[in-house]
């Protein structure tokens, strides 16, 4: 009985284990960029192999199980790393950077690209980072998580964050300078990936559900022609470099713009959000 009384009086508080931050695993490249920008001295890894689409790629169960060995697991969230929905990860370690941001729902569309085969998109649009302002908000989310670990040099981390913050603010401001120019076009896009760009620039982008170039068929062109208005200046935004062959299929008056969706490293093999977004701005300036 005394034992019972003793245990009943014991507080629910548990002794907090001293957490240490030694390694961070990122589930996609936009998450990896932020993570390595804040704490480059830590062991950093990006789980997503270059060339794979995070929306449809599935890691092996052993790889998922080994993620628990990292101190922090950073993902973009909103369903971007879709395999998370059926995988088991330690919730205390998993950070979804997109989750606290306003969502844009995806329209259900059946299509095919990457290794996922024919599939349908549902849920929320995860491509938040295409708006540098939103991406900027995410670095502060990550900063809060990293600073929650003891033994972190607050001043150094805050300085690094402020450097990236300034770069992202500059990118956002530069992007906004193209708002007027883009407003003069009737814009379409090959996919829904540009929804946050559309929102940032207060544009109206008609999103098609075009597959990768190799699977581009006449019916996709018919879809476009059904929407196309010959008397207007039309801008077609692509998430990949459209070949001359595919451009030829479209009316001559249609302008084409490749806008890197920043999900993969650049052609040189390294992922640098700032540099790659600047290249997007250069392409916009060449319009």
């Amino acid at each position, binding site marked *: 009985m005394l034992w*019972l009384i003793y245990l009943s009086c014991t507080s629910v*508080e548990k002794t907090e284990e001293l957490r240490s931050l030694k390694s961070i695993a990122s589930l996609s490249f936009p998450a990896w960029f932020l993570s390595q920008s804040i704490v480059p001295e830590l062991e950093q890894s990006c789980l997503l192999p270059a060339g794979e689409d995070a929306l449809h790629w599935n890691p092996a169960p052993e790889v998922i199980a080994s993620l628990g060995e990292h101190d922090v697991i950073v993902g973009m969230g909103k369903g971007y790393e879709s395999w998370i*929905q*059926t*995988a*088991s*990860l*330690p*919730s*205390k370690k998993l950070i979804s950077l997109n989750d606290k941001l306003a969502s844009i729902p995806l329209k259900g569309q059946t299509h095919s690209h990457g290794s996922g085969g024919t599939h349908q998109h549902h849920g929320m649009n995860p491509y938040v980072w295409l708006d540098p302002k939103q991406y900027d908000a995410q670095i502060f989310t990550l900063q809060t998580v990293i600073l929650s670990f003891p033994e972190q040099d607050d001043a150094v981390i805050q300085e690094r964050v402020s450097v990236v913050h300034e770069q992202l603010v500059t990118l956002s401001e530069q992007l906004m300078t193209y708002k007027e120019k883009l407003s003069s076009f009737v814009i379409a896009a090959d996919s829904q990936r540009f929804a946050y760009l559309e929102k940032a620039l207060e544009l109206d982008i008609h999103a098609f559900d075009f597959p990768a170039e190799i699977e581009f068929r006449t019916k996709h062109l018919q879809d476009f022609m059904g929407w196309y208005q010959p008397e207007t200046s039309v801008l077609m935004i692509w998430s990949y470099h459209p070949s001359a062959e595919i451009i030829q299929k479209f009316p001559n008056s249609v302008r084409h713009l490749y806008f890197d969706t920043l999900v993969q490293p650049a052609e040189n093999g390294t992922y640098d959000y700032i540099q790659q977004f600047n290249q997007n701005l250069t392409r916009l300036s060449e319009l």
Partner: protein
Amino acid sequence: MIQHAIFLALRYIRSTKGTTSLLVFGLSIAVYLPLFSYFAVDAVQEKLVERGLESPILVGYKGDQFDLTMNALYFRGTVRDSIKMNVHEELQARGDGISVPLNIHHTASKSPIVATTLDYFAARDLRVAEGRNFAVIGEVVAGSRVAQDFHLAVGDSIRSDVTNLYNIAGAYPMTLKVVGILSAHQNEDDRAFFVSIQTGWALDGLLHGHEKVTKENVLNPQAKEGENLEATAAIFLFPEITDENRNTFHMHGISSQMPIDSVLFFPDHQKSHDQVLGEMELASLHHAIRPHKVVQNILSIVFAIQTALHAYFAVLCLATVSFLGLIFSLRYRLREEEFVLMERIGGAKNIILVMLCTELGIILIASVLVSAMLSWVSLSVLQMLI
């Protein structure tokens, strides 16, 4: 002289093995019953209270607290109504504790399958002794006892039991792959299988994989491209989640609206503990309970039974002692001639008394030893059962 009395007593006991054994047995049972009941109640109390205190807050559908506690803490019985996954998500989003969803209504060879998240292992301090923890749907981690009972090793498979034989439209049994075995923890966790919460939904049929829906196996083959194809009930559902078909498993609905039986909440501090209890008071469909309070209620019944048992055993002991007195007085009368003879050949009266006391002492000591041994064996069995 006393040595001679002891020698005679031992000789007598040897010559009456049958009756002495019977006496020892009867007396042992009389001592064993109150001894075992005392330690058994203590052991049960310790186990129940320990588990209750290790589970500060339990959230479930408003209703029977006893069912909820027995299901979530001891994996026994089922809860009548489920709550939504968003209850867990909201608790998790607080960030001041560990929230663990639980779905415990499936079994494999009658052993409970606990569908939960990896946080359960962290909160309960469970360690994987062999293999690894579950990572994707279709994987299972076995408790140490259940692995031992079914001779399971990493790489083996188990099959979930049929939940309803008469519901052919319900969920089918699924084959799950054992990827890890937990180390022994001497509690309920040793006797359960653990799967991810998504695997639990797969067992419910809410998350499933099936053969490709084509115009050949749909109810509306006339549907045009882009229109929804309505699959027939005869479509082949995958009974096993493999590396090949895992990607095809999908949920009809969003995870936050999926059903769970309960949520265990492990607060970081007293403040969050009190806040969660307070906030849950305002919820209309679910409530938060303190499992150790429920356990104490159960124990109060056990204590009442124990008190009644003590009274019963006291009467039993009294009766046994009376019988023992009667038996010894009868034995004395039967041996009266023997004692007279002993006196005639020079045996002192006090030596005869010492001899009789020694006989009684040996019988009592033997009875206490036997009852202690019986109690120890019974308690060991009980420890394994509770």
